[in-house]
């Protein structure tokens, strides 16, 4: 599914369980042991499209920094108090709108961190030190949570780890159907599997190498069957002529395939990107149409659909969802108070109220 051509293993990562998993399951990739990735990066950066090459190049390395970080949100936007656990950076999927094309443009290879023990111990200490608080932690900030799971086996480590934790829920967010490992894990109800959803025509044109909408739905149903809680992210919502019918159709599919009691939350986010990403998208996706929306520069220096248009879109989406289940928590991603108020008629009063949205008792 994802053509990983080269795997580079830093010598100090040789003994990691992640490295061993990758070696044993990557029969078609060339494996090279290296002391430093500097030269490899420099060669890739000389290519006409380093991002595409980077997505086919996997580097196993140690993370020298922190694994856990609070979602930075964005200036003026309502914060949902989310934490990221970065076990990897970059993603083998190739979504036209992906912010990582800009964010990781000088470091475009896929990176998996080998020092998993450090990651677990950092997380353990954090949760212990904040036992009176409740957290949502996700692994999908800088990568797809499951895209490489078939070769890394990372879920087999992380899901059981969180199963015994009292004050946290883990979210694995994906656009794939790589769920085989999840089928046999003891998750203890502490892992929610989430899918980003878009109409099939957007998947075909903008989300290369990702699973089809049907495959995502089937995977969600299988995970639900194994007792996992499920979440969905309509993010980014892309507006085009007839978008309403297509997105409403997805909502219908969700409630046909999944018992709404298993759905922990649904998020809505409009297409957004920094102005610097625009030329990258045009360069890499010549036939792309997503740049032709009516977008404006917002105070946080991100391009978004003109506010009345995105408020209208969010309201419609909320209506589509509420038609099937009035109680499902819905939240907006990266939107300011004014938009929340226009869409929901009220704004969540701080993190405590947002946690109520997620039915989390803090």
């Amino acid at each position, binding site marked *: 599914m994802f053509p990983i051509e080269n795997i580079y293993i830093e010598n100090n990562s040789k003994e990691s369980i992640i490295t061993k998993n990758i070696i044993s399951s990557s029969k078609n990739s060339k494996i090279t042991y290296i002391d430093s990735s500097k030269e490899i990066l420099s060669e890739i*950066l*000389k*290519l*006409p*499209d*380093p991002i595409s090459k980077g997505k086919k190049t996997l580097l196993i390395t140690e993370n020298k920094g922190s694994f856990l970080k609070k979602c930075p949100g964005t200036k003026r936007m309502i914060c949902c108090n989310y934490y990221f656990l970065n076990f990897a950076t970059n993603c083998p999927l190739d979504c036209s709108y992906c912010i990582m094309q800009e964010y990781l443009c000088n470091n475009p290879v896929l990176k998996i961190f080998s020092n998993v023990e450090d990651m677990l111990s950092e997380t353990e200490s954090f949760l212990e030190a904040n036992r009176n608080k409740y957290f949502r932690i996700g692994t999908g900030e800088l990568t797809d949570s499951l895209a490489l799971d078939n070769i890394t086996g990372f879920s087999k480590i992380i899901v059981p780890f969180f199963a015994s934790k009292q004050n946290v829920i883990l979210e694995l967010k994906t656009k794939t159907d790589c769920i085989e490992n999840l089928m046999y894990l003891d998750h203890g109800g502490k892992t929610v599997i989430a899918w980003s959803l878009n109409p099939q025509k957007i998947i075909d044109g903008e989300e290369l190498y990702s699973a089809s909408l049907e495959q995502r739905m089937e995977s969600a149903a299988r995970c639900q069957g194994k007792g996992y809680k499920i979440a969905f992210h309509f993010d980014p919502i892309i507006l085009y002529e007839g978008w309403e019918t297509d997105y409403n159709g997805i909502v219908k599919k969700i409630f046909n395939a999944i018992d709404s009691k298993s759905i922990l939350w649904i998020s809505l986010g409009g297409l957004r990107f920094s102005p610097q990403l625009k*030329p990258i998208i045009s360069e890499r996706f010549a036939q792309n*149409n997503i*740049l*032709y929306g*009516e977008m*404006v*520069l*917002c*105070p946080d220096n991100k391009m978004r659909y*003109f*506010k*009345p*248009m995105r408020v209208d879109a969010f309201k419609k989406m909320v209506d589509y969802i509420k038609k099937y289940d009035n109680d499902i928590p819905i939240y907006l991603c990266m939107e*300011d*108070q*004014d938009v929340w108020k226009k869409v929901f008629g009220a704004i969540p009063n701080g993190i405590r109220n947002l946690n109520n949205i997620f039915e989390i008792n803090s």
Partner: protein
Amino acid sequence: MMKVTIPGKISLKDIDLEDDAFSISYPKFLETLKTSIQEIGLLTPLILRSKNSSLQIISGYRRGIVLKELGVDFIPAYIFKDGELDNEEALRLGILENLYTREINHIEISNSLFKLEKDLSIEPEKIIETYLPLFGLEKSMFIFKKFISLQNLIDGIKTLAVVKKFPLKTLAKLSLLSDKDQESFLELATELSLGFNLVNEFLTLLEEIAAIDRVSISDLLLDKSVNDILSIEDINRDVKTKLLISLLKAMRYPHIHDFKKSIKSNIKNLHLPHEIAMDIPENLEGGTIAMRFKFKNKKDYQEILSKLIEISDSEDFSKILEMI
């Protein structure tokens, strides 16, 4: 190995002035050079090499033409004998000589890289490694391809680009247009005397409208509404440019345009005196409206306050609040 020699006097008749194999210069304007040579003479000798029975120009192609036009018979030149300089060494020497004596423009870099790749069949990887740094460029295939793409520009655009010093990014975008679109765009840019910021703005708007409406840029520029503005006689270029940008923005962002028009109409209906101004947030982001007012005395102040209270009950005011 190249040999350094003392320049000799060469008869211009012995030089093949038709052969521009190593010329990278653009544009080939000769008038300024001619004036300079007439006034102060030829400061830099030509570099030549023997080729068959004549002399081939390695560097100084334009100088050669000018000297011929000026009727000069003998010129100073360095000559490499047959076999002393292969084609790559010759082109490299020509490039270096140009680089050390003047500023090289984007089109000339493109010409150099194109000749290295197409005429001399040198692999792009080698060109990137060896030649891009000569021009002070990063060793990158991306940059190499951008420069090569400039070969698709029509002459008029190339000339305009050199005169107005367009950045590579703008030129690379222009190079993706068909010749017909480039010609139409050139006509517009020339008529409005656009600098590169406005070229970028027009180009982006035109490209996006053309893509959305599935028409060509040349067809778009033939649109009646565009030509109505261009043909207004009693306004200057700057005003025409502003009007055209507004027109294109309305075409590119119809919902935003309608929305802003509607708000403007609501504000107008409030009949605010000139002492009161209502500032709507940029792109409606931010969620707050600013009211500014000025007054001289208590009476003015009270009048303003009563006007502010009066408008708060109006339908237009409510509509504005709803929209923000």
